[in-house]
């Protein structure tokens, strides 16, 4: 599994960090997404998908 994030789309809601702080963080300056793990291990795959589904701006894609 590979996670991609699009800072240009991100609206800083924090839903991804709320869902899995091991995978995502937010930039202190403008609150946009910072990807911590591009390739999540099996234990984080479900939360990676959940975060992508919850993102209000569609800024997270899973491939």
């Amino acid at each position, binding site marked *: 599994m590979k996670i991609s994030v699009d800072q240009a789309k991100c609206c*800083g809601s924090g839903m991804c960090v709320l869902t899995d702080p091991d995978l995502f963080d937010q930039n202190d300056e403008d609150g*946009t997404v910072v990807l911590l793990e591009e390739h999540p291990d099996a234990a984080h795959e479900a939360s990676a998908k959940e975060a992508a589904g919850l993102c209000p701006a569609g800024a997270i894609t899973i491939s």
Partner: protein
Amino acid sequence: MTEVISEKLPTTRQTPFDPPPELARIRDQAAISRLKFADGHLGWLVTGHHQVREVLGSPKFTNDPAEHHLLEVRFQGEVPKERRRIKPGMFLNQDPPDHTRLRRMLQGQFTVRRMNQLSEWIGTIVDDQLEHLRSFGGRADLVQEFALPVPSLVICALLGVDYDERHRFQEDTAKLLSLNSTFEEAMAAMERIEAFMRELIARKKADPGDDMISDLLATGEPTDEEASNMAMLLLLAGHETTANMLGLGTFTLLRHPDQLKILRDEPDVVDNAVEELMRYLSIIHFGPVRTATEDVEIDGHLIKAGDTVVMHVPAANRDPEKFPGNPEELDLRRPATGHVAFGHGIHQCLGQQLARIEMRIAFAKLFQAFPDLRLDTAPEDVPLRTDMGIYGVHALPVAWSS
């Protein structure tokens, strides 16, 4: 496909915690249906969860009030278009790129990490307010003494607004949100709040403090007018919504003793309890509203450029397709994540992580501090905010003995 057409948006609640029952019927017939507006426009009503997300997530809609057809619910739907123009800085109503530019100036202030860092401080504010509540002896109005002060104290301190000056905006906020205000009354209230904010911006420029408004001004990015309207948006959004969730949420829990017992017995359930209360109560009567800027197909329906769409968040939050089992029931253990009470799309609530922390701490500490908290009036006598743009309770008389 037969089209379902509503002549009017149903707004009369039959029970304190549920949206008008017609909405579930409309949603079951058609998650996207037609709705008549005050000017005769035949627009849309969206009641399904994934359909609400689809509209709110689409860039083909605007939230500019000057573009919306109006419902009769407020001002009989008659407000001249030129008086609905958005003011610079009201980023909630602006489209990209202005929206993106302004919101980004604030997003860094509301990150999950920053809000978590405030937990201890918010806990102190809640504890102080619980002591204040206790000082009334054995009975008090929970709204005036707890639910409204907690988020007001928090947002005032964060923005650098003197809490003792709250009379300069709280009464006018109520006039602005009252469905009984005339357009002129609402505008006059708005102008007084705007004057207060302009004065505040001037003060912060002359004498910066350790607060969000001073930090925003220090960036040199927003114009004074933008900064003033941005601060106003944060101030109003920061106290009314959370305050009403605390008041109505407490009323809800007191009326669902089995659920309250879960919250008391299993403190860890509080995070999910807040999500479920948000899902179950939604706190707005209906909305948000958008207008299509170009033709767009949503879930098989062609929504034409210029069509106004009313999303119904309370109906979407009880869509059985998203929340299986019995979505009409409060269930603090239900997976409630994914509700649209904070909205969806680029305008999703900027302060949601602050609201979550405030609610988690306030509900947890309230029921710890007052284990036998109970209603001090007949439930049918609790005054409901059916007359206000944001729902909730006007007052919540409570009593306790220990």
